[in-house]
Every structure is written in C-alpha cells, then in structure tokens.
C-alpha cells in the first residue's frame, strides 16, 4: 500500500515504495553499529569475534567486569552534570551575545564580531596549555568547575544564533518597545519564545559535543572518580589488545542516558532540527 505524505503546500502526495525501501536501508545502516555494540556486550568471550547476527550464549559478565573496572556510575553522573552545565552556560552566553550583536550598532562591532569568528578557527590544541595553566593557578584541577567554566561560552553557538537573531523581524521588536518592554523583556518575552526551536536544536548539538569531549577532561582530571565516561571507555583500550566485551558493555551503558533523552524528546528534537535547518 502506498503511503501518503503532506507537501509544504498542504497537498497530499504518494510516496513510492522505492523511496521507503531506500529509507529503510539507510536506517538499518545507521542502526547496525548500535545493534552490533549491544550484541557484542552480551556475547560470551568465545563468541566475541563471531560474525553471527544473533547471540549464541548470552552473558552479563562484560557488564559486571565493566562496572568493576571503572567507577561507571560516578563517571556517568560527572558527564551528565558537565554536559548539561556546559550546554546551559553556552546557551546563556550565546543568546546574550547574539542579542547584543543583532540589536545594537556600536563602534567596533564588526571587529568584535570578526574576533569572535576568529576564535572559532583557533584549534583547541593552541589554547589548551594557556587554559590549563590558568586553571591550575585557580586551583580548579580535579573539579567540575575546571571541566565546565573554560567552556562556558562558544564562538560557534554565538555565530549560529546571531544569524537567527538577525533574521528576526525588527517590527516585532519595535512594537514591543512601543508597548513599554525593556531590552531584557524584548529578549525573553518576544525573541526567545519565537526562536525556541533554533535555540533548542543548538542546545542538542552543544550537549552532544560536551558529552563526547575527551581531551579536556583527560587533562584536567587526575582520578577516574572525578572524570567523565569518555575517559572511562579509554581504559578498556590499549596498544597490547582491547577488551571488546567490557568496552561494548561500558559503551552501551554510556549511550543509555543520551538514548533516553532522545526517546523522550524525539518529537521536539526532530522538529527543532527541521525548523532551524540544522543537520
């Protein structure tokens, strides 16, 4: 049976089985690595390198070994706190900066904007050492502050939001001002609700980026209990052989929080990506 879909003009169009087939194949390609990760995490040692698509003997041993080898719960908690805090701080700073850049014309605005853009192009490796030295002087090593504060703002987020803020109709802002709204009121009562989709989709990107951060937590923390799950996963890898079973068990566990967030907010995430045009 052919399915129906709505075009942008509101007309119903028949979608072909061929396009459905293509989408199903692409979905399988996307899902397969996740399936393989979960499958491997439940395989017995003797079947770890089996090419079978189904598990033979199912075991929870790898999960037990992974939880015993690293402080998984603590590392997951640290990662959630770090990623959520970084995302909130970056959204806050980027909304304010984008609002400032789009709302007012001031001397040196272009230069300042260009400098912001340039910082995006500076690789992490170039700023790593000065940031680390500053952080050491502040006594923030081995702390959540050390993980979060250096990433409190993001040039990428500011540039992206600036484009959205710039396209916001000035008439609406003027109308709000005539109604007596303050600058703060204009931002939170007029602009923010209308750009929620763009901000939310940016938030998703920032959260994933923070969740996957590896090198900075590695540099800042000295103990696994203070570190993040990405560092924990590394502990199952070595040049002399990888522990695939526990690694896959740890990776499956580590991806659960993100998966739960995605399942709960699936509709909003997809909507926000479509509306903001982000890919």
């Amino acid at each position, binding site marked *: 049976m052919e399915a129906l879909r709505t075009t942008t003009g509101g007309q119903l169009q028949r979608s072909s089985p061929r396009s459905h087939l293509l989408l199903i194949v692409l979905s399988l390609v996307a899902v397969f690595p996740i399936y393989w990760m979960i499958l491997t995490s439940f395989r017995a040692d003797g079947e770890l390198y089996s090419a079978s698509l189904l598990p033979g003997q199912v075991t929870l041993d790898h999960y037990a070994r992974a939880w015993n080898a*690293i402080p998984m719960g603590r590392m997951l908690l640290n990662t959630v706190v770090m990623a959520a805090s970084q995302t909130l701080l970056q959204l806050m700073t980027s909304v304010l900066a984008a609002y400032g850049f789009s709302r007012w014309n001031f001397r040196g605005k272009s230069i300042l904007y260009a400098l912001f853009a340039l910082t995006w192009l500076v690789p992490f490796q170039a700023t790593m*050492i000065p940031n*680390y030295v500053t952080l050491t002087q502040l006594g923030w090593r081995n702390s959540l502050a050390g993980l979060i504060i250096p990433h409190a703002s993001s040039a990428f987020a500011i540039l992206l939001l600036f484009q959205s803020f710039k396209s916001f109709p000035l008439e609406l802002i003027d109308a709000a001002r005539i109604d007596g709204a303050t600058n703060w009121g204009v931002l939170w009562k007029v602009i923010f609700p209308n750009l929620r989709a763009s901000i939310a989709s940016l938030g998703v990107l920032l959260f994933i980026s923070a969740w996957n951060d590896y090198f900075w937590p590695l*540099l800042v923390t000295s103990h*696994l209990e203070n570190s993040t799950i990405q560092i924990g996963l590394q*502990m199952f890898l*070595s*040049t002399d*052989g990888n522990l695939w079973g*526990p690694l896959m068990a740890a990776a499956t566990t580590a991806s659960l929080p993100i998966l739960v967030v995605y399942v709960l907010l699936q509709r909003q995430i997809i909507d926000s990506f479509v509306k903001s045009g982000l890919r």
Partner: protein
Amino acid sequence: MIRLAHVLLVALSLFLLAGLVVAQDYPAPLTADQNVTIRFYSYNLGNAAFGPGTEKLIAEFMEANPNITVEGVPVPAAEMTARVQADIVAGTPPDVAQLIFDGLDFIATNFNAKPLETIVPPEELAAHFEGFSPNGLQLGRLNDLTYGLPFTFSTPVMFYNADLFRAAGLDPDAPPTTWAQVKEYALQIAEATEAEGVHIAGLGGFDWIVQSLIGSNGGQVLSADRSTIEFGSEAAIGAISMWQDLRLSGAHSQFTDAEITEAMFTGNLGMYLQSSAIQRTLITNAETNGWELRAAAMPAFGDLPTTPVNSGSALFMFSDDPARQRATWEFLKFVTSERGYTIITSDIGYLPLRPAIVEDPQYLQEWAKANPLVLPNLEQLTRLRAWVSYPGPNWRQIETILLESVQQAVTSDGDVATIMTDAAARAQALMP
C-alpha cells in the same frame, strides 16, 4: 700581568669546579617521620587489563614505606607526553611518569628529566643495578646518563598456531628460525588451510619492530654519533624488501595489525611477529577459541644474529624537591626490585629485567614453569638492542616518516630502495 690574571682565574675556576664535584649533594634518605606524597603518571594504571597489577605495585610499596604516599594518575599512553608537557608548563610536573622509550631524547632534553646519577649516590645506584640484564639497563640511557629506568617492556616474539602447523604438515616443535623458512611455512599454511600464513606487526604506531628488522639485517636507523639517519642504507632496504616479498608472494596477510590480531585470536593466522606484551591476551583467546599457542624467538636474516628491539616504557623523574626526589627513588627501587618485576611479569604481563628471578623459587620460578611461553622472550634479552629515539623536536615526525615509507614499500610493489632513500633524505632534513 694580564696573562697571569688569566692563569689565576682559570686555576680558581678549576678549584671551584672540583669542589662542586666532590661536594655534590644527593637528596638525603627520608627519616621515619618525614611524610612525602609523590604523583605518578602511568598509562597502565586505570587500564582494565593492566591496572590491577600496577595498583598492586603501588599498594605493596606504600605498605612497606608508610611515610610515602603514591598518588597514581591514569593517563592513556597516546596522551602521556602532552599531559606531562602541560603540567611542566603549568609548573606542576609529576614526580615520576611512565613514558614510552621512543621519546627518550626529547624527554631528557626538553622535559628536564632528572638523570638518576644526579639523585642517587653512585654506590647505591650500582648496588641496585646488580642483577639487571646489562642490555636492559641501556634502554633508558642517553649520553651515559640514566634518564629512564626500564619499567614495562617487551620484545618482538614469533607467536604461532601449532594446530595450523599440523594441518599444513609442519612440525610445531620446529618453528622457523629464518625469514626464508617463514615464507616457506607461511605459504604452506595459506595453501593447506583457510588461514593466513604470517603477519609482521608494526606498519603503524611505533617503529620498534621496524628497527628490530633493520638491525637484524645488519643495519641501524641512526648513526652511532646520532647525527645521520641511516634507514636508507642497503641493510635497511634489504630488511624491508624481505617484508615486501612476503606480502607480494601471498605468504603475508593483507590485513591491518588490528584486524589480524583478531584473526590470530580466532585461530585464523599461522604466525604473528608481535610484542610479547600481547601474550596474556593471546593465551586467553587461544584457550577460549580452542587452539594451541606457541612462541619462538624472532627469525633471523640467514646467519646474521637477530637484534630484537624493545618496546614499552621507562619511569622518568621530574621532581625538583629533594625529599620528593628521594621518595621517588625509593618507589623506583621497589618497582624495579625482584619483587617489583615479579608483579610486573606475573600480574601485568611484561618482561622481568632481572632474568635470575625466573629461576628463583621466591619469585617467578613457579610462574615461569606454568608460563613457558616467556622463555623465548627472555632468551632474546641477551641480544636486546635499545629502541633508538631520534634527536630534536622533530623526533616524532622522523618516526612517522619511517613508518609511512615502510608501509608504502610493503603494501605496494614499488621500488624499496627509492622509497627508503627518499624517506631517509626527508628525515635527515628534520634532524637538528
């Protein structure tokens, strides 16, 4: 008059210098009530496979030295140099760090690593080095100073699957001793079974196996005075040509090291020249997948003696504080003692640098009986050659050039001489 003043000045300088040498201060041994904490960066620590053994070393040391606390910091091997460098810049270097041998020159020159000869009185140092493999002691030395104390290290060993040998009509009790035999045996295995014949690890990562091959063919990667790159020499070209020939003939697998390791685990590779550090993982997988694992010494180029090069790491001291230097030395002494190497060998899986403990019932005798695979590895210590670290800030790039050129030569039918001489010329341009 001026001449007399010069002579007096020189004499005074010599007098002062002599006084300095005679009165060189070494950090004093710690008193019982002197509590010291040292920070130890280790890439074995925290690792799910090697971590427990390293934690055991630390725990036993602290039990024996209650006034010294060792704060172990797990840092993955790939990021170790960057982490130590960042901490040095931040003014908080670790007291001791486990670093890979190929960075020896750079670490000694740029990281202000402390040679043991400046920390420990000569008689105490000599007493501790008694019983060490003489070749092994050279691994962390540069310009006659011991910057790194060999900690965890291994040599290239030819692991082989005895069941595949039998299936191909070969005698597993008579493994190949030359590369010509390796080719012959590998072709037989590939023809008679579904498995791959042979694989030499080391086309990526680090160049210690490449250095082993070049050295075993009579060459070297760097001249003795450390000024000239020599991996464009005839001996080096000959060694890499052998590798290329193995691959082109079908005796050698076409897989990457990571892929072929998994093939070896599942019993689908006949022979595998790889770090002996992989031995524990291989034993586990051979038992799980039901095949018999054996090990032999690295094969030779005809009648030439092999020169296995070590992989692995040494412990480098960075502390400036005399008390922490002394505490660090106490820690180094313990981890490289008979008991320390017993833990390193039996719990972590590396070689003991004190070969005698393998026959000592107090240490590794029982373990060695139960793990005979370690014997070819130990035997190679007598021919061990130190992993050459390239001088100057471009050392890593020089190593990369060598590895990439070997990869290009081995995975193609290109002219090995052209590839290697070109690589040597490019590397020479990066020398200080």
